[in-house]
């Protein structure tokens, strides 16, 4: 099968869906003329003209306009440049975008996508390196997706573009350059369905987005110790695939959750609590969460390195529980 990058995969998804549905348009900073900071919009304006719009530097305006357009029947895509900037438009995101369909008793829907490049890159410091998906897991009314590979990036983006609810699409900055097999035929990846990417018997490792790279590393290292890890790529955080998680944990009796985001109050906390509530009798070891320490992302290269997940340390900690 052909290999394309994550970035190309999102471009394909956009182009295919924009051809299919003329109500889709894109707003953001430096996306039309420049093609996006990570090239994720490159060439779209050649085909779709003013459906790709450069905006002033105001996240509040971008989200506010998108919510209005969505209520008026359009399917806007709002690019946030960096996920870190979503804070500027927080009222528009969590009070308006998330609540309007509910507040108006379903008289209107808000079919829009917020695209949010997130995660550590290289010395981008505390305000340009964050993973904030957990914030939105606590706000009813928003779907949250976080693909880990080009195929899912395309399939999930296409599903999001067809969804009648607001979807936040977290796309990891490092993953943009990653290549992977993507079918040339059209396909969708459903929102809310996890992917068991590797079957195993001894421990379930759950991750998503960039965390999946660590999940594979850890599983490979465990395999050398004779431990067969089952890896679940969650793909979607809201809603998350409870059935797949329970089924796997009941099989392996151990659970580790890995994400690049801060461990405290992270997505892993929700999953851990869910498993403890529903399947504690199947657990043969404490649930293990692996995430960033509870500090702002440091700028200093050595400190940033220390901040990152280390698969050796994760393996060590997992082995202690056997």
């Amino acid at each position, binding site marked *: 099968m052909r290999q394309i990058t994550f970035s190309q995969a999102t471009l394909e998804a956009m182009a295919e869906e924009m051809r299919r549905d003329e109500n889709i348009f894109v707003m953001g900073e430096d996306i039309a003329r420049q093609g996006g900071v990570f090239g994720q919009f490159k060439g779209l304006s050649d085909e779709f003209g003013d459906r790709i719009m450069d905006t002033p530097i105001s996240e509040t305006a971008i989200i506010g306009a998108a919510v209005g357009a969505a209520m008026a029947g359009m399917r806007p895509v709002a690019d946030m440049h960096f996920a870190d900037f979503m804070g500027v438009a927080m009222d528009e995101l969590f009070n308006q975008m998330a609540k309007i369909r509910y507040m108006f008793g379903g008289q209107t829907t808000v079919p829009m996508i917020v695209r949010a490049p997130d995660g550590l890159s290289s010395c981008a410091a505390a305000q340009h390196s964050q993973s904030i998906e957990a914030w939105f897991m606590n706000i009813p009314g928003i779907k949250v997706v976080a693909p880990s590979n080009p195929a899912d990036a395309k399939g999930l983006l296409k599903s999001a573009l067809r969804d009648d609810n607001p979807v936040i699409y977290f796309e990891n900055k490092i993953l943009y350059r990653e290549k992977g097999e993507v079918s040339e035929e059209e396909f969708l990846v459903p929102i809310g369905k996890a992917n068991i990417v590797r079957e195993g018997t001894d421990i379930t490792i759950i991750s998503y987005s960039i965390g999946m790279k660590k999940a594979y590393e850890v599983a490979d290292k465990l395999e050398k110790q004779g431990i067969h890890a089952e890896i679940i790529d969650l793909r979607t955080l809201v809603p998350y695939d409870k059935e797949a998680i329970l089924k796997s944990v009941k099989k392996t*009796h151990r659970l580790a959750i890995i994400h690049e985001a801060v461990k405290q109050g992270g997505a892993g906390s929700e999953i851990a609590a869910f498993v403890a509530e529903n399947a*504690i*009798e*199947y*657990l*043969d*070891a*404490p649930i293990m969460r692996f995430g960033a320490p509870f500090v702002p992302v440091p700028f200093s290269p050595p400190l940033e390195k220390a901040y990152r997940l280390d698969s050796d340390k994760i393996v060590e900690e997992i082995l*202690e*529980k*056997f």
Partner: protein
Amino acid sequence: MIKEILMPKLGLTMVEGKIIQWFVKEGEFVNVGDKLFEVETDKLTNEIMADTEGILKNILVNEGETAEVKALIGIIAGENDDISSILTNSGVEIQQLIDIEFSEETPITEQPENIESSYIKATPYAKKLAEERGIDINNVTATGYRGTIVANDVENAEINEIKIKVTPTARKMAEDKGINLAEIYTGTKIKKADILAIEEKYPQDNEFENEKASSMRKIIAQRMKNTWAGTPMVTFNMEADMTETINLREKLKAVYERDGIRLTYNHIIMKILSKLLVKYRYLNASFDNDTIIYHKHVNLGIAVDVEKGLMVPNVKEIEKMTLREIAVQTEKLIEDARTNKLSPDYLSGGTFTITNLGMFGIESFSPIINKPEVAILGINKIAEKPVVVNKEIVIRPMMNLSLTTDHSLVDGALSAKFLKEIVEIIENPYLLID
């Protein structure tokens, strides 16, 4: 006031003791004379009383654990006494410091040790497995993280235990009614209906009554089984004409009674043995793989039935004793054994044993050797019997002797010779002054 409780030395040979039971819980108040704990040595069990009043602050050696003599096993102190220095010296505090050092991220505070120790650390899945498979989690050895029982431990435990699938209700019913699940298990999960069916089939569910065996019974059982399994024992029987010995006893009895001493046939036979065992070194010996150990002295044991079982105190260096001394010492040991006052030293170091079942009418039996001894003499009932003397049938008081020897050291001919010589002296007790 602070009182350190040490493992008592109950007799000269005791090096360690096992705590069977603490009668007082940590934090409870004890008065002088209250039962404090029960300790078991390889010979016997003793209840130890408190000699200080105060609060039992710490139990350092738990039930089932063993400690050396003079080791610190607990502390009695007043409510506000600071016992930390004692604990530091005993290594307890140091252990706790190490625990803290290794505990992860600071906010997690460990439970106090005494609360944790009563809780069985097992993962939820291990508990679920144990319940499903009918395994008592208390009997599972933990090998998991931080001393936790994990599923794998339960699976390993299962190898040693018969795998019984049973519903929780059925298990409870079986426990209440004293039904042994292992006996009725056929491979399919036991349900409530199965238990009810058993009850219907055997309506008298009180046919059995379970009682936990005493420590003494467990020791006896263990020693008997070990001897039985590991010793080639042969029992030899020979009858003795008691006429002369009865005469001897009748004549001495009256004399001894003036001094308040009771003379029995046991004493006379012991006197005979004390003489013969010096001569028959093989019978007053032990055998340890490839070494024959001859004992310098004859420490003659006598089996005494006590309330809970059997004790065998021995009369030390009996070969130096007169019959009178033997009578006095033997009766004292029997009395002490029955009133639980016996010093453990009298229970160890025996070299030969006698056991008398004559008073129960027994005429012959196969006594089991009291290891590491190599022989035991069973004494039976004296009965008037027709015997042939000088080609005439006469009636004589006869007594059978049952000698069991360890054939790995003592051959049949030697055993027979020894027994024959005993009989000769019984029939002609004047030889005692020979």
